[in-house]
């Protein structure tokens, strides 16, 4: 099966269509019904980060999402127009200092806890590319 690709402007109103497509592809790929929400939450954390931090919520900047069914896993890649890679640890460590009561953060923490694997890299063109792996039967 050819991958499912989506490219959307960096604007919040496109989050829900992406969420719906991600769950649909997850369901076709064999992700358990009960886990589809967790899958789409994890992916949308990456999509929101790309929109906010990579593309500054500029609707002229595209976010791409590519969903590919591999043996034993669904691979989701989220690309933005920035050139960020994490320097050392990223994401919140709640419980340490003020972070527990922060009204933001937690995105990477949640994505990493829900998915089997989440990491960030640069694409061949030097743009931020987040990769998420979800196990499938």
């Amino acid at each position, binding site marked *: 099966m050819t991958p499912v690709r989506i490219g959307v402007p960096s604007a*919040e*109103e496109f*989050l*829900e269509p992406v*969420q719906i497509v991600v769950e649909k592809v997850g369901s076709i790929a064999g992700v358990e019904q009960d886990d589809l*929400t*967790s899958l*789409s*939450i994890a992916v*949308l*954390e990456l999509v*929101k980060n790309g929109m906010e931090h990579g593309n500054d919520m500029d609707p002229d900047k595209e976010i791409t999402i590519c969903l590919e069914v591999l043996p034993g896993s669904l691979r989701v890649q989220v690309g933005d127009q920035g050139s960020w890679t994490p320097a050392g640890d990223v994401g*919140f460590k*709640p*419980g340490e200092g003020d972070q*527990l*009561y*922060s*009204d*933001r*953060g*937690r*995105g990477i*923490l*949640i994505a990493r*806890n*829900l998915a089997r694997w989440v990491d960030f890299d640069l694409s061949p063109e030097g743009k931020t590319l987040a990769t998420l792996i979800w196990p499938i039967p």
Partner: protein
Amino acid sequence: MKIQEQVKDGVTIVRLTGKLISGPELMELKTAFQNLVNQDRHKKVVLDLGGVTWMDSSGLGVIVSGHTTLRRAEGMMKILNATKKIHELFIITKLITVFETFASESEAIASFKEPEKA
């Protein structure tokens, strides 16, 4: 997302239903918490998440900021009916250490009562 409010035994129950996805609707929820303070109904608040089908870090962020808004005015918010999946998010983020959570509305309401003098 839909926000509904109901007062029972002096406790304001804020019921959310649907998807808590980033966007104008989450801002409405933020405003709703501020309004509770403005209307002096913030002392005893129960946030009923029973009807929430989807929520991520942005939703959690608004709930935490609501909690902070209420606390600053010496109010208190407790969480009701979080589904298994949403409860998991509270655990992952350690917010479970910030909020008291309940699976029964009457217990959530009762928890605001002053302990009886012996």
